[in-house]
């Protein structure tokens, strides 16, 4: 890889980690759509701040534009509180209006500078290495890397320091308030970080990738773990993996880097969604299948148990009887169920008939008492 490529990848990885850290809490708070709203509505803030600073990667522009993001959240909440419309509608009203205002401002006043509508959506990651940061005449690397590296550190520091507070306010805002942890302040703190991250990332990677990186990796990590700390680490790692994968894809097809990365986020999520152990689609389907057959085996044990010692036991325990008119199973279903029940030691064949084992009797008893029986 050329130095420029390494720099591009480093910026993307920093962005992915920064987005994953705050995105994890957005996903857990069911505020995923807020990332969409914030990342779009910061545009007028960026344009106005750009007129003032004339530099897209100036820290002042970042802070100024981030304020627009927080303003969006406040506006959406004020509209929701008015009870005249629901939160999703409020969001759908606020962010297109602000975003479009930004677009109008760009096309009217900034059309001939490096700030155009295409770049807003998918960024200009390929050009990021050309924008260098010089300190006292020395080139210290691309500005974008410093900016995103800095934002990543800020997010990591904030999440690290306030981990306990963020966790409590996210899980149980009522208790957080009762204990004096100011969940509203924590909420706006988190929203400030999301805005800051979105503004910082927008120039390098564009809006779409910001949203993808804030939601995709945390949503995937959620399916892989039961621990918040692990979820944070996994989100960051999956985001970084998606960035690398996207970079490779973009090089292979010679396409938009940020676009390819956003696609890669989707692919990573799809793979996890399908293949995650325990909660993935495949694991769930397998478990359902197994449960279906185990249930049938227990059903068989209960059937035999009910008729044990009754005058009709001889008739009821015949294998043919199971796919006769009483039980009504198909011959194939009966064959597989009897095979499984025999394998698990619930029943044993006795000539034409089936006999319940001690294990089978216990399983039937437990199942009848309402327990979920695994055999």
């Amino acid at each position, binding site marked *: 890889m050329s130095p420029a490529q390494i720099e591009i990848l480093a910026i993307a990885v920093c962005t992915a980690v920064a987005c994953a850290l705050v995105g994890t809490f957005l996903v857990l708070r069911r505020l995923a759509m807020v990332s969409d709203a914030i990342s779009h509505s910061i545009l007028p803030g960026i344009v106005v701040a750009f007129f003032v600073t004339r530099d897209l990667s100036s820290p002042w522009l970042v802070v100024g534009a981030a304020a627009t993001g927080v303003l969006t959240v406040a506006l959406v909440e004020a509209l929701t509180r008015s009870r005249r419309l629901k939160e999703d509608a409020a969001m759908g009203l606020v962010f297109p209006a602000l975003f479009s205002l930004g677009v109008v401002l760009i096309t009217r006043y900034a059309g001939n500078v490096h700030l155009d509508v295409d770049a807003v959506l998918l960024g200009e990651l390929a050009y990021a290495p050309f924008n260098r940061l010089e300190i006292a005449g020395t080139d210290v690397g691309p500005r974008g890397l410093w900016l995103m590296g800095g934002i990543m550190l800020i997010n990591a520091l904030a999440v690290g320091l306030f981990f306990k*507070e963020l966790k409590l306010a996210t*899980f149980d805002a*009522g208790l957080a308030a009762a204990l*004096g942890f100011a969940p509203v302040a924590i909420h706006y703190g988190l929203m400030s970080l999301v805005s800051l991250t979105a503004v910082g990332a927008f120039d390098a990677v564009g809006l779409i990738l910001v949203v993808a990186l804030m939601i995709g990796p945390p949503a995937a990590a959620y399916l892989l773990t*039961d*621990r918040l700390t692990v*979820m944070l680490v996994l989100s960051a790692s999956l985001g970084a993996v998606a960035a690398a994968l996207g970079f490779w894809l973009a090089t292979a097809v010679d396409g938009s880097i940020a676009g390819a990365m956003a696609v890669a986020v989707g692919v990573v999520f799809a793979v996890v969604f399908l293949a995650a152990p325990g909660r993935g689609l495949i694991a769930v389907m397998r478990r359902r299948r197994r449960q279906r057959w185990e249930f049938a085996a227990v059903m068989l044990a209960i059937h035999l148990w009910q008729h044990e010692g009754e005058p009709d036991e001889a008739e009821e325990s015949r294998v043919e009887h199971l796919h006769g008119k009483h039980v009504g199973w198909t011959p194939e279903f009966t064959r597989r169920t009897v095979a499984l029940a025999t394998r698990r030691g619930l029943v044993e064949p006795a000539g034409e008939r089936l006999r319940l084992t001690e294990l089978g009797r216990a399983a039937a008893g437990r199942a009848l008492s309402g327990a979920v029986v695994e055999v």
Partner: protein
Amino acid sequence: MTDPTTTCAVEVTDLTVAYRERPVLWDVDLSVPRGKLLAIMGPNGAGKTTLIKAILGLVPTAAGRVLVHGEPYTANRHLVGYVPQRGSVDWDFPTTVLDVVMMGRYGTLGWLRRPGRRERDQAHVALEKVGMDVFADRQISELSGGQQQRVFLARALVQEAQVYFMDEPFQGVDARTERAIIELLKELRAQDRTVVVVHHDLQTVTEYFDWVTLLNVRRIASGPVEETFTEENLRLAYGGRVEFLQRQAPADPPPTPEDRDHGLGGYGKIRP
């Protein structure tokens, strides 16, 4: 700190909570003596949860004053434990039982300080008390309703509060858990702590509680159960005819969960 001269655990005067100028609580006065088990009762929409939330400063109040052990709530926060309704949190949150219980220590820890060994030990002790220590490392989504409630209770216990506010701790729990919870509440009372419970089941009031507040936007009545829990007060609070069915022991079916949700434990019927 605790003012030894006051015998009131909670003192509420002229508390009004309005939602868009529609009163949810109208001028409620309430004083809860220390070391009592108090039930807050009333029909749906009577403002029971709102009363607790207003006392804890979780909803804005239009008027009124709240004192906890003689001081404003914000000054005596550390004396108060809170058990919100079980359904108010997301039980799919990626965390363990032990971790949730440790959250009860966060108030004492304050900002930035991390829970450590001490907090973990306290959480284990509390889980032991509610019979849930074997579940300490479980993911919380694996718990049943009764187990969730026990975890919430353990979290309140580690708060080591003097006054507890519990919002419907018996909601949707099995009979065994209900007994376990009431035993714990009585134990807290024996240690001279005060427990304020939003309660639904008219049938168990005399058995469980020694103080009762009947609420229906206004305070209808408040005092010792034997004086306050009268048919007349109940009629005032529930706004209709409260009819106590004589419990015919063997023939009477046990209350179903649905009955419980409607608040009468299956034994009383309300006709508007």
